[in-house]
């Protein structure tokens, strides 16, 4: 037993309560709920009523042994977390393969007579195995997407700037717009492919010999409105994912009509990887009690050669 008086113990508890709004877990550990509360307090964005940023698995009152941030909590990423001794996973994208993000598959819509509710889906081996893995290792999964995206400056764009080695080109303002050393589109594509460790997910619209200098970053998934707003002031957009009938055709037409423009698609998850590295760095500053580590997700795509 630690030689500590009851009076001192009460004082310690009181000081920690004063420092943080919620009581700490046993032994001064921080709970998953407390981590989330500190994120909400510090992220600098009003918390939305309707949001995907909620716990997806595990007990929020669990003491956190370490935090892993990732763009996608794949089984491989969860395995890395367990090996590293971390039990709280902060993921940008869903864990259970759908916006619904539940440990059983979503109920298929539009089948059967409308007055009879659809029967529950049969067990799915991938959903079940992931759920079992999370339970076996007492992991807690919390999604952080809606609000992290709204933080200023945009951490996803900042992450891309960091990994592309463009910090020296970024001003104090929006990291999503920068002027790099002029180069050709195909040279830029090679640089992006290498920097983001892309395997087969990259797709490009535009002349490979086009000279490019003004770069705009659109990480994640973006609608046509974002491209319409961004393209006029850029030579090249580097985006995660767009709708092909929208931004891809828009850039194709702009190029065909003589516009010196281009579009590099890297994939949604690949585009979000570096932003979750920024997240781990930020979490270190507000959660000093435990280690926060980024675990990258490899490019899901390959293509035959």
């Amino acid at each position, binding site marked *: 037993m630690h030689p500590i008086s009851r009076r001192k113990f009460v004082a310690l508890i009181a000081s920690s309560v004063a420092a943080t709004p919620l009581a700490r877990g046993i032994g001064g550990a921080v709970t998953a709920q407390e981590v989330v509360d500190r994120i909400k307090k510090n992220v600098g964005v009003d918390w939305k009523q309707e949001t995907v940023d909620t716990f997806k698995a595990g007990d929020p009152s669990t003491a956190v042994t370490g935090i892993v941030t990732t763009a996608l909590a794949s089984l491989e990423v969860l395995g890395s977390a367990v090996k590293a001794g971390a039990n709280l996973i902060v993921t940008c994208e869903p864990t259970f393969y759908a916006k619904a993000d539940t440990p059983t598959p979503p109920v298929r819509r539009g089948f059967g007579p409308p007055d009879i509710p659809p029967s529950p889906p049969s067990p799915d081996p991938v959903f079940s195995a992931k759920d079992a893995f999370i339970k076996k290792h007492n992991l807690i999964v919390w999604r952080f997407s809606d609000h992290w995206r709204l933080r200023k400056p945009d951490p996803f764009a900042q992450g891309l700037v960091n990994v592309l080695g463009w910090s020296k080109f970024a001003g104090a303002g929006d990291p999503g717009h920068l002027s790099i050393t002029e180069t050709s589109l195909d040279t830029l594509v090679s640089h992006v492919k290498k920097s983001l460790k892309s395997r087969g997910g990259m797709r490009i619209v535009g002349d490979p010999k086009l000279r490019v200098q003004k770069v705009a970053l659109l990480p994640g998934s973006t609608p046509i409105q974002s491209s319409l707003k961004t393209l006029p002031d850029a030579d090249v957009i580097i985006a995660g994912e767009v709708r092909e009938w929208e931004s891809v055709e828009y850039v194709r037409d*702009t190029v065909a009509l003589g516009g010196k423009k281009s579009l590099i698609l890297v994939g949604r998850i690949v585009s979000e990887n570096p932003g979750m590295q920024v997240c781990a760095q930020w979490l270190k500053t507000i959660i000093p009690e435990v280690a926060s580590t980024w675990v990258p997700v490899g490019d899901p795509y390959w293509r035959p050669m």
Partner: protein
Amino acid sequence: MISAGEVVARIKTNLGFLWRQTTYRDTFKFGGPDTVVKGIATTMFCSYDVIRRAAEAGCNMIIPHEDTYWNDRDDVTIVSGDPAYKRKVDFMREHDIVIFRMHDHMHAQKPDFIWVGLARALGLESKYETAPQSHHFTLPETTLGELAAMCQKRLGDQALRVVGDPKAKVSRLQLGVGYATPSINNPDVDVVVSGEQQESDGFLDSPAYVLDAMTLGIPKGWIMLGHSVSEEQGMLEMAQWIKSFTPEVPVQLIRTGEPFWAPK
């Protein structure tokens, strides 16, 4: 002499089912029913390049499957401030172009030419289809790597993307087209071949699912051909069908082609 309105009237008559008046997709996008038609081109996307090539080929009526103004509703208020929109519209005006989209009614046709065209282009013979128009095929067992290479070779698309273990043994293929991409978690399906799907946050995020299936050693594969490549094949069938009831003018497919290139 035939007007665009008459061509559309014949399309409606030959469909074999009632026109859905509520469609916002299958309408005139440029020009109108009174335009005199010199020739008809079917295509996937009404891109500027397609319009230019159609005009060169003497086709002033274009029947695309997809949108003209870079959004599904072809809402011009979204795009009208953009220089590319103005130049595209100017070109169409100068060349007396008329555009009528065929999307919803094409997918409602039996059979749907879009699926027919893609199955033809991929060499998916009907003897392999589990049930007529199920788009579910049981093929002689192959690997995901071999199947993907076959798709790329047959369609010639550079930027095809695949998720899954190239060595995974696959046989049961669910075909999709465009954005109508089936979910990979169906127990009767080893591999989905389709056009486009959002990577995550949808009804079922197949890329993430296949990644985990791969970790678990469950053979699953996901092959994305690209939206344009997957659906433009069936515009050949559409051209042939329109030709059968518009003998007055030439009808041809003008390929939109793949918009992308891929790095080495």
